[in-house]
């Protein structure tokens, strides 16, 4: 009888780690965002306006200056004095005191800004991760405090609009200072604008010269043509910003956070 018990205990010690392997741990600093659907502000010519988003991991907070310092320490080609002008503009990391010196210690916990899309991608590769897509970012950002669809919570869009207008510009705040949303993600609204992988596709709905449904000039009233929600001004502001960017731009209030694929078997067997 003792041998049976001992064997069962031993078996337990063998099986438990196997169970843990089947359900991979969420990477540190990230949360798991479950799959779902979201309605993009501008739909593609070939789409029916609803986009499917697969489950993914997302950083709970934007990348900080301290995080980025670790990156450039390991990768000298991305230091301020070394970076190629093809990949970043002249004010890349201008708010740091030096190549490897933040200067102001409060910068450590503040979101890194003045980084180009190229730099953000390089950081992501260093971590073995990637930038979120527009769809993933918008889907995560659509969540309110208590549910995946924040619009169901009254005043959601207006609250976000308030946060966007704050002055002085909010890049001076620490990451994670506010309340997390339903997914446990902080700072999607009101801290910094964030690079996404396909930022340039934000307003493209087809071959721009042939497109007769959407005025891709998108200024004045025509920006509402083809939009899915005329009242979501916060979304308009984000889409307008993204479509005004170029990959080498470094701006005082554009930062980023990372996403990662969930290993294949785990996303099919949650």
């Amino acid at each position, binding site marked *: 009888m003792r041998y049976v018990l001992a064997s069962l205990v031993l078996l337990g010690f063998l099986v438990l780690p196997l169970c843990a392997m089947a359900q991979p741990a969420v990477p540190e600093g990230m949360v798991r965002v479950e799959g779902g659907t979201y309605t993009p502000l501008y739909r593609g010519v070939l789409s029916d306006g609803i986009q499917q988003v697969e489950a993914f991991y997302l950083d709970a907070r934007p990348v900080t200056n301290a995080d980025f310092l670790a990156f450039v320490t390991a990768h000298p080609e991305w230091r301020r004095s070394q970076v190629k002008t093809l990949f970043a503009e002249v004010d890349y990391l201008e708010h740091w005191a030096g190549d490897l010196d933040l200067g102001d210690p409060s910068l450590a916990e503040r979101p890194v800004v003045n980084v180009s899309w190229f730099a953000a991608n390089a950081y992501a590769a260093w971590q073995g991760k990637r930038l979120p897509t527009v769809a993933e970012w918008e889907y995560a950002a659509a969540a309110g405090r208590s549910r995946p669809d924040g619009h169901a919570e009254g005043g959601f869009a207006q609250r976000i609009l308030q946060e966007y207008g704050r002055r002085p510009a909010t890049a001076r705040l620490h990451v994670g200072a506010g309340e997390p949303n339903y997914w446990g993600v902080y700072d999607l609204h009101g801290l910094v604008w964030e690079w996404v992988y396909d930022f340039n596709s934000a307003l493209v709905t087809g071959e721009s010269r042939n497109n007769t449904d959407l005025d891709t000039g998108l200024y004045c009233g025509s920006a509402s043509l083809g939009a899915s929600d005329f009242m979501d*001004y916060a979304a308009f*502001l984000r889409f*307008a910003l993204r479509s005004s960017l170029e990959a080498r731009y470094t701006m005082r209030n554009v930062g980023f956070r990372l996403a990662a694929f969930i290993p294949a078997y785990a996303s099919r067997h949650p």
Partner: protein
Amino acid sequence: MNTPNTTKPFVMTLVTGMSLLVVALLLFGYRSSSEAPGTVSVAGEAPAAFAPHDGGIYLPEIRGKEVAQLTAAPNVPPPIARDYATRVVVDLEMVEATAELADGVEYNVWTFGGEVPGTFIRVREGDLVEFHLQNHPDNTFPHNIDLHAVTGTGGGAEASLVVPGKEADFEFRAIKPGLYVYHCAMAPVGMHIANGMYGLILVEPKEGLPPVDREFYVMQSEFYTTGAMGEKGFQGFDIEKAVREEPEYVVFNGRVGALTGAGALAAKPGETVRLFVGNGGPNLTSSFHVIGEVFDTVYGEGGTLANQHNVQTTVVPPGGSAMVQFKIDVPGKYTLVDHAIFRAFNKGAIGILNVEGEENPEIYAGQTVLKDYLPEGSQRGTN
């Protein structure tokens, strides 16, 4: 079963209807279906009084280059002295800042030139304008500019999109004289305009405007705050109110009291005054009136035809303008209002033009008698 009594009226109705149809067809003529919609065939010539502007434009040779003199409201750059066209460089910086809408009421305004309304730009018909639009690096949002004076895509908006920290340069010929609104046309445009991104550009006709003694820049607009009118503290932009077109503030020159107290306009009796009146909207049409004065001349809708004389109240649409001129005959306090009067009384659409000087009793004698009045038949001491 049709009796003779019902058949006859029926036939009469049918005959009348068909006759009317035939008459209508004859009156309106037969239209060829192969013509494009909007095609107009004119029979004969229009009388000279109604002859339209033929759209011909003045494109003189450009001589030299100068930097535009820009002013903040209510001041206006001086009339253009030169009689030739030149390259005019306009440097306009967009700044997002916190400003006071009213006493103790703070609001984040988005501006052309640091203030609401934006800087006044003055050029001459035929000038080549080299426009430098700058977005301050501390700003949060991308912006652009649509000048109604520009003939070209977006009025310049397509060519001028800039994120914070960037400048876009573009060029256009000022071929159309008149007083034009300019505004930011970035999505969502209603919010960019509602936050203060509008101003005026005057393209003087090549022969110039008739000289006057004083010129002022007055721009009406609305603000849609989350709190009620007068509620102190920081106020945000309320999209619901903006879509319902129910502003909390309707003001001249960007805030309550901009044209009162120390900001009041001033002139002397006998002087001619010209007001360049713009309406940034975003939603409301202004019924512009100066209490105590009548406009001698109105250039309706900011065009180049002095199309009306002796006007009490003129209409200024959002995204539009008007030029009004009047000679001051008597001293006093003249009040600029939007005559949709609750806006003047309750929302801030009031400005003052102070005129001090010699009284002119021949024009306005003021009060001559103040005495008791009792309706006829009343007796003192009875009720």
